[in-house]
C-alpha cells in the first residue's frame, strides 16, 4: 500500500511542481489571442506597424505579462515598441501606455526575440483585453535593384511574415500592407490574399498555432527619399545669462538605392518630375518657437540655401543640402541656434534646476543611426542627473569653453537607431549657485586691473641703471 501512495504523492508533487514552473516561467499556454489585426505602413522609409491584439486569458491563474515576439532579422532594425491599452467605459476611453522591455527566453525557437508587456492590472482568467501595439522598423526596405540611374524610380523589397509571429495561439488574424503607390512589382501570395489600390490584405487566417511563420516578399515602388543621419551630435549649452545654445552636427546620407553612373544637371533641372524623383532635395527641421540666430553651415562655410519660418508655436527651418542627395550620396552640415533660457530651464522644488529639452533629431521623417546628446552645464554646477524616457548610455565629460578654469560638466547621452517618435522630452537636473555666473566677469576685471596697476607701477619706477 505504501508504495502506491508514495508514488501517487510523488506524482502529485511532480505535477504540481511542473505546473508551478509553467505558471511561473511562462504563462504561454494560458493566453491566447482571439483576434489580431496588423497594419503595415510602407509609405516612407520608416516602416510603421500597428498591431491590434485581443488577448484572452484561457488559463486559471491571472497573469500580468504578455509577450511579443520578433524574428531576429527584424529585431535589429526595431527602433521603438509602444503598447497602449484602452481604459474606461465606452465613452470615456483613455489610452494608457504600458511598460515594454526586451526579454530573453531560454527556449526561444530559431532565435526569436521577445518583448514583455507589463500590464498595470493582472488579466484574470477568462477575461480578455485589447492591446494597441505600435512598432517601427528602420532600414527594413532593401532597394532592389540596389543601384539605379538618375531617371529610374526606386524599387524596394520588404520582407515580413504573412502570419503574425507570436508565442500564443492566434484564433483569427489579418494583415494589411499599405504601399506608397499602386506600382507593386510582385508580392508573395499566401491565400487568401487580396490587393486593391495601394493596399494588400493577407488573411483572414484562422487558428494558427504559436510560432507560425510564412515569409512574404513585397517588391514595390517607393520614391520617397531615405534621409538617414548616420551620426548626429547635439550639443546643448546652458548659459545662465539667458541663452541656450544648440549645435547639431549631422552626417546625412541618402539610404535608398545607390546612384549609378551619370548625374546630368540638365535633365535634373528640366524634368524634375521624371529625373531624380527619389533624390533628397530639401529637409525640414522643426525647431522650438522663439528660436534666434540660426545658422546652417558646413566645414567650408555657410550654406545659403535655407529658409526659416517662425510663428508663435513652432519654427520651421527648411534646409537644402549643397547638392541634391542621390542614393548613397553623403553630406555633412551643422545647424546651430539660440533659444531663450526661460522656456527650457526650470527650478524644481528641492532647490535644484532642471533642463527640459527634446531628445531626438529635429529633422522630420529621418532615421538617426547614432545620436549623441551633450548637455553642457554651466561652470560650477554639481550633481548632474539625467532622466530619459527610454534607455540610453550615459557618461560625464568636461569641456573647457570661454575662459573656463575648472571646466564645464557635460552630460553625454548616446542612443542608437532613433526615429522621430523618440523626440520626447528629457530632463537634466543639477545644482548651480548663481554666484558662479560672476566668476568670469570678475576674473576679466581683475586681470585688466592688474594690467593697469602694472602699467602705473612701470611708469613710476625708474629701472635704468644710470642716473
Amino acid at each position, binding site marked *: 500500500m505504501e508504495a502506491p501512495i508514495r508514488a501517487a504523492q510523488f506524482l502529485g508533487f511532480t505535477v504540481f511542481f511542473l505546473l508551478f514552473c509553467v505558471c511561473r516561467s511562462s504563462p504561454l499556454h494560458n493566453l491566447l489571442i482571439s483576434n489580431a489585426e496588423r497594419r503595415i505602413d510602407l509609405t516612407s522609409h520608416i516602416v510603421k506597424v500597428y498591431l491590434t491584439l485581443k488577448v484572452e486569458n484561457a488559463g486559471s491563474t491571472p497573469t500580468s505579462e504578455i509577450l511579443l515576439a520578433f524574428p531576429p532579422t527584424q529585431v535589429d532594425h526595431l527602433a521603438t515598441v509602444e503598447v497602449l491599452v484602452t481604459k474606461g467605459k465606452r465613452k470615456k476611453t483613455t489610452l494608457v501606455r504600458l511598460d515594454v522591455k526586451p526579454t530573453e527566453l531560454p527556449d526561444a525557437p530559431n532565435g526569436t526575440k521577445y518583448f514583455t508587456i507589463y500590464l498595470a492590472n493582472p488579466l484574470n482568467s477568462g477575461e480578455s483585453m485589447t492591446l494597441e501595439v505600435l512598432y517601427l522598423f528602420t532600414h527594413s526596405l532593401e532597394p532592389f535593384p540596389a543601384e539605379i540611374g538618375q531617371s529610374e524610380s526606386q524599387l524596394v523589397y520588404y520582407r515580413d511574415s504573412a502570419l503574425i509571429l507570436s508565442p500564443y495561439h492566434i484564433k483569427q488574424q489579418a494583415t494589411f500592407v499599405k504601399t506608397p503607390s499602386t506600382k507593386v512589382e510582385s508580392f508573395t501570395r499566401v491565400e487568401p490574399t487580396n490587393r486593391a489600390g495601394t493596399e494588400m490584405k493577407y488573411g483572414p487566417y484562422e487558428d494558427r498555432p504559436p510560432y507560425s511563420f510564412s515569409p512574404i516578399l513585397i517588391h514595390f515602388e517607393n520614391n520617397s527619399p531615405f534621409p538617414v543621419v548616420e551620426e548626429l551630435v547635439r550639443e546643448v549649452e546652458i548659459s545662465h545669462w539667458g541663452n541656450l545654445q544648440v549645435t547639431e552636427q549631422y552626417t546625412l546620407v541618402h539610404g535608398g538605392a545607390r546612384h549609378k553612373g551619370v*548625374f546630368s544637371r540638365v535633365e535634373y533641372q528640366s524634368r524634375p518630375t521624371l529625373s531624380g524623383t527619389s533624390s533628397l532635395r530639401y529637409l525640414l527641421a522643426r525647431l522650438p518657437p522663439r528660436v534666434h540666430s540660426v545658422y546652417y553651415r558646413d566645414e567650408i562655410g555657410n550654406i*545659403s540655401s535655407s529658409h526659416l519660418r517662425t510663428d508663435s508655436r513652432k519654427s520651421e527651418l527648411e534646409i537644402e543640402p549643397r*547638392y541634391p542627395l542621390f542614393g548613397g550620396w553623403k553630406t555633412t552640415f551643422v545647424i546651430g541656434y539660440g533659444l531663450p533660457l526661460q522656456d527650457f530651464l526650470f527650478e524644481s522644488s528641492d532647490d535644484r534646476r532642471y533642463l527640459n529639452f527634446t531628445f531626438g533629431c529635429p529633422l522630420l521623417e529621418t532615421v538617426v543611426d547614432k545620436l549623441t546628446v551633450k548637455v553642457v552645464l554651466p561652470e560650477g554646477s554639481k550633481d548632474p542627473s539625467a532622466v530619459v524616457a527610454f534607455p540610453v548610455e550615459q557618461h560625464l565629460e568636461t569641456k573647457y569653453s570661454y575662459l573656463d578654469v575648472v571646466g564645464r560638466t557635460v552630460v553625454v547621452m548616446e542612443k542608437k537607431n532613433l526615429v522621430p517618435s523618440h523626440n520626447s522630452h528629457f530632463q537634466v537636473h543639477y545644482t548651480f549657485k548663481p554666484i558662479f555666473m560672476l566668476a568670469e566677469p570678475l576674473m576679466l576685471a581683475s586681470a585688466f586691473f592688474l594690467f593697469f596697476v602694472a602699467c602705473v607701477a612701470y611708469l613710476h619706477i625708474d629701472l635704468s641703471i644710470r642716473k
Partner: protein
Amino acid sequence: MAAPETSTAAVPTLHTNNTVRNAFGGVLSFFILLLIGVLAFSIRLFSVIKYESVIHEFDPYFNYRVTQFLTKKGIYDFWNWFDDRTWYPLGRVIGGTVYPGLTLTAGTIWWLLNSLNIPLSVETVCVFTAPIFSAFASWATYLLTKEVKGAGAGLTAAVLLAMVPSYISRSVAGSYDNEAVAIFALIFTFYLYIKTLNTGSLFYATLNSIAYFYMVCSWGGYTFIINLIPMHVLLCIVTGRYSSRLYIAYAPLVVLGTLLAALVPVVGFNAVMTSEHFASFLVFIIIHVVAFVYYIKGILSPKMFKVAVTLVVSVGLAVCCAVIAVLIALVASSPTKGWSGRSLSLLDPTYASKYIPIIASVSEHQPPTWPSYFMDINVLAFLVPAGIIACFLPLTDASSFVVLYIATSVYFSGVMVRLMLVLAPAACITSGIALSEAFDALTGSIKFQLPGVSTDAEVDAGETSSDTTEAQNDEVKAEKPEETSKDRRSKKSKKKEREHVERPSAKAKVKTKAEKKRLLALPLEASAVSLLLLIVLGAFYVVHCVWAAAEAYSAPSIVLTSRSRDGLHVFDDFREAYSWLRHNTDVDDKVASWWDYGYQTTAMANRTVIVDNNTWNNTHIATVGTAMSSPEKAAWEIFHSLDVKYVLVVFGGLVGYPSDDINKFLWMVRIGGGVFPHIKEPDYLRDGQYRIDSQATPTMLNCLMYKLSYYRFVETDGKAYDKVRRTEIGKKYFKLTHFEEVFTTHHWMVRIYKLKAPKNRIRGKTKKSKSKTSSSSSSKTSGTKKKNPWH
C-alpha cells in the same frame, strides 16, 4: 605701440602748464592711434558682413590648410611635412618650400587663445589675422613716420595707411595671405632701421634684424628690404653722410639678418648664394672700407692721409678687379644662374611674357594700368610729390630713406600690379608728411594772423575735420611731449641731441619760430580756403577707400552674388562642387583641373590634385594643359597615365561668369605648347582670333576643354548661347566617349567628369581603333610617344 608716448606725457616736468598740455597731447595721440587701429581693423570687415566669415580666393586656402596641419600636428611635423595630396605623383615638401611666417603667426594666435580656453576655430583666427595685422601695420607706419617727420606726420600717415585701398585689397578679413603680415613686417623693419639710424643703438639694430627675420619668414618680398637698405646706405655714403650710426644700423643687419634668414628652410643657402642678396654684401664691404678710411683719417695727419690714399687706391684697384672677377664667377655658378624668374621680370618687365608664360599668365604679375593707380592709392598719387619735396626740407638720413623708398617702389609697382602693395606704405608715408606739413603751415599762418582767436580756430579745425586734421591739430601738442621725452633721454645719449638739431621745428625757440612764421605766413583767406580744400581732399579719400573696401575688394571670389530685380542671388557653385567631391568620391581619388583650382580642391574637397597654384613644376602644368587642349582620346590617355579619376572644369557660359576655363584656355595651350611642341597656338585661333563659335577651328572644337565645358549645353536653352563670349557655340551636339558627367553644379559653374574605365582589350580590335585615332588626329604627326610624357 603708443605706450612710450603716454609714459613720457605722464612724467612731471617743471612747467606745469606745459605738463598738462603734454599729457593731454600724449593721451590724445594714444587714443587716436587706438582709433586708427580700430578703423584699420573694422574697414576690413565688410567682407564678413556682406558675405560671411570665410577664407578668400586661392592662395589663402593653401595657407589655411597649412595652418590647420600645424595646429593639428605641431611644429615638428609641420617642418617635415611631405604633402602627397598635391602634385600627384610628385608630391610637395611643404615645410621646406613655404614661407612659414603667416602660418606660424596664426598658429601661435590660435594656440594662445586656446590655452586661455577661448575656443575659436582655426578658420576664424585665419580670417581675422589680416585685419589685426593691418592695425599693427598702421601703428608701425606711425612709428616710422614719427621717426622721419614727427608725431603729426606719423598720425596722418597711419590714418592714410589704415584705409589705403591697395593694402585693403590684400588684407580684408579672409584674405589670409603672406602679404597680410608681410606689410606689417616690412614697415616695422624699416622703422627699426630708421630708429637705429637716428639713435645708433645696438639694441634697436638687433631688434631690426629680428624684424627682418620675421619678414623673411613671411614673404618673398624681403629681397626688397635687403636691396633697399643697402641702396640707402650707399646713398648716405656717397652724399657724405657716413656716421657710426649708419654703421650700427647696417652691419649687424647684414650679419645677423643673413644668418637668421638662412634659418628659414625656404631661403636656406639662397641667402648667400643668389644675386638678390649680393648688393647687401657689396655694400657691407664698402661700408667697412669707408669706416676704415674714416678711422685712418682720424688718426693720421692730412699729409700722411693723402699718401696713404694714393697707396691704397693703387693696391685697392687691383684687389677690386680680383674681387669683381670672383663675384662674376660666383654669379655664373650659383644654382639659379643669378636671378629667379620673378626677380628678373622685375628688372626687365618684358622678360616674363617673352620666356615664362606661367608667370605671365597670372593677372597680378602684369604691369598695372594708369587707372589702377588712382583706384589703389587715390589722392595719395597727387600728394606724393609734395611729400617728397617736404622730405627735402631738410634732408635727413631718415627722410632720404623715405625718398629712396618711394622712388624704388614706384618703379616696382610699374612692373607688377602685385607690388602696388609695396608702394602703398611709401605713398602713405610721403602723403602723410605732405599733409602734415601743409596743415602745419596753414594752421600756423591762421594762428599768426588771428592771435586772439587762435585757440578757437584750432579747436574748430579739429572738430569739423576728419581724423586727418585732428591728427594734425594734435601735432603741435604731440610734438612737445616728444621734446620733453628727448630732454629726459638726452641724459642717456648725446646722439639724441644731434637728432634734435636736425629738426628745426622741434628745436626752435618761441621767438625764432614767430619770426620764421611771419616770413612764411600766408594770407588768412588763402590759408583758410586751402585748409578747406585739403579737408575736402581727405574726405574724397575716405569716401573712396570705404567704397573700395565695401564694393571692390570684399568679394571672397568663391561665393559670388548678383543683384537682380528679384533680390540677391547667390552663386555658391564652387563650394557645392568641392563639397560633393569631399563626400562622394573615394578619399584617394585624384582630381585634375587647371592649376588655379588646385589649392581650393585640396583644402575644401580634401582630394589629391595633379597641379596647384604653387606652379613649381612647369612640365607638370604643361601636361595638364596639353591634356586639356588635346582631343578626347589623347587627353584620356594622359589623364589615365596620371591615375586621374575626375576632371574638373569651370564653366561660366550659363550664368556669365567671365573668369572660367574657356577664357583661360589659351594659357593652357601656350604653357602646354611650351613643353610639348605638338600643341600649337595657331591651331586654336582663327585668323589670330580666339573664338568658340561656328568660325572656330576644328582643333578648338574637338579639344577636351571645349567638350567638357559645353557637353549638353545646348539642351538648356536650345540654342547654346554662351553668355560670357556672347555668341552661340560652334559645335552643339556631340557625345563623350571617354568621359562621363558625374556632377554639375546648380549654375553649371563647375562641371566634374569621371574618366571611363578602359575597355577590355579584344584581340584584333585594338589595332583597328589605334589606326582610327591616329588618322583622326591628323595634326599630331609627331607620334603618340611625345603626346604623353608619362609613357
